[in-house]
């Protein structure tokens, strides 16, 4: 197995607060990894560091062996990391299809004048985006809603759309931040199936943050546990479940 993402000794300070400290993580190609830990442990911050929203105070992060330091989020997306957000961030006034179309942004290369006068590469590329976009939505059972405004979708559909949109950027690594938040146990079960299927279908690696243990223990191949910005444990689900440190800090007794 080859390494896709590697974070070495990463720390992030907010003022005096060490949100992430000495963080080390590797994700291999094709892996599905979980990241758990108490509230405020620094999980989302880790995502933000991977995607260029924040720059690490110290340490290095690399994708496919190439450093991501100093890159803007948009550049990192072009390199192949896509994400969803803890609090859904759709383009809420736009149609479902437009949400996905925007994600193809980096794969379009007609220039400003071609766009303004609708000549050259414009027509052909626009047609292609429209078609691929619709196909993708079909996979996520959103094809009957292509023209609906995103904010009018039910919550679950919004979560699906956010994942579809992330996939449209054609990532190598997909980061999911609490995809099951606000879902009931049944909905969570369905989501679990979907994540498995995506990983296979799109042949990518996934890193996910989640507080719902049924999901995390159910699908993750490996799990990292964060507390106060530091990794306190890592391993396969069965090890993690039994780890006394994890039970003390996060799971609680009789987990």
């Amino acid at each position, binding site marked *: 197995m080859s390494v896709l993402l590697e974070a070495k000794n990463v720390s992030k300070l907010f003022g005096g607060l060490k949100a992430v400290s000495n963080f080390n993580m590797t994700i291999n190609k094709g892996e599905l990894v979980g990241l758990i830990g108490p509230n405020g442990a620094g999980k989302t911050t880790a995502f933000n560091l991977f*995607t*260029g*929203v924040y720059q690490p105070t110290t340490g290095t992060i690399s994708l496919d062996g190439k450093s991501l330091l100093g890159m*803007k*989020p*948009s*550049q990192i*997306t*072009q390199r192949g990391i*896509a*994400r969803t*957000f803890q609090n859904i*961030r*759709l*383009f*809420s*006034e*736009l149609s479902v299809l*437009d949400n996905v*179309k*925007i*994600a*193809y*942004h*980096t794969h*379009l290369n*007609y220039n*400003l004048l071609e*766009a*303004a*006068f*609708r000549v050259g590469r*414009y*027509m052909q*590329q*626009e*047609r292609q*985006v429209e078609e691929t976009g619709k196909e993708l939505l079909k996979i996520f059972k959103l094809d009957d809603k292509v023209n609906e405004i995103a904010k009018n979708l039910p919550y679950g559909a919004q979560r699906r759309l956010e994942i579809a*949109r*992330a996939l449209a*950027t054609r990532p190598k690594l997909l980061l999911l931040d609490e995809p099951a938040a606000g879902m009931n146990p049944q909905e969570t079960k369905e989501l679990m199936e979907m994540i498995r299927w995506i990983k296979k279908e799109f042949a990518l690696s996934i890193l996910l943050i989640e507080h719902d243990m049924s999901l995390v223990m159910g699908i993750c191949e490996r799990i990292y546990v964060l507390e106060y910005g530091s990794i306190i444990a890592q391993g396969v689900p069965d090890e993690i479940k039994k780890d006394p440190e994890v039970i003390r800090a996060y799971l609680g007794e009789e987990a």
Partner: protein
Amino acid sequence: MNSLRKRDLKAIVISLIVFAIIQGLISSEFLDPFWQLNIIVICINIIMSVSLNLINGYTGQFSLGHAGFMAIGAYTGAVLSVNFHMPFIIGLIVAFAVAAIIGCLIGLPTMRLRGDYLAIATLGLGEIIRIVIMNVNYVGGAAGFMGIPKTTNFAWAFFVMLFVVFFIKNYVNSSYGRACVAIRENEIAAEAMGVNTTKYKVLAFTIGAGFAGVAGCLFAHTFYIIHPSSFTFLASFNYLIMIVMGGMGSITGSIAGAFILTTISALLSNWPELRMSIYALLLIGLMFYRPQGLFGNIELTSLPIFRHFKGGK
């Protein structure tokens, strides 16, 4: 897809018909000079509002300095005609370029600001532009620039407007426009989709500023005279009102907003003392009646009646 171009073609034919009718009314002197002038002003205001809408409505960047760029275009155009005797078309092009370049230079640092902070910064920049002009004696300073030839006629105003509207319409319906709208909807998510938000914000600001410059050049050649006081932040408010009234994020809305407000203003000139009070009440009333603007963010042309016009979906 060819239907896209067909639609454009149809729209152009319709525009030509509109042009022919109005030009006929002017030539036959059915419209008196007052209204002839106002029709030109409407075209200029449409350019202003549509270009501002690209910045405010589509890209979601709250700019209150649009009149400043108009001033740049106006003074550039005026200097070229009066002091360098350049043909009008050169004036328009250079006005675009100068306003766009300054827009870009201003946009680069300020587009980092958000919301109301951006609004006040752009307002301030608009005022700075105006105050600098006020201190340049070469263009008449605070006393104004006089003796500009009256070159702008209805044909110039109309066709330049048509060009600008089509340019911006096609722009927003491309991946460029989608990037802008994505920024408006959620900047962080837009970045996560690979949209270089700074680039597209500055680009929208630059293009918007450039076309405001074009409008300014037309404006300068309409009234014989330009004056820094025509380009205060109150003028910028006026264009803002037009796009809000029409509906942010709707080009047809901006056109309607510019048309309606300019016409109302002109009609009210019959009651000079009460004109502004009535105007103010109308404004407030319209906001109560339709807070999201007349068209919201929907294009008039996407309403059902217009569908078959466009050749269907």
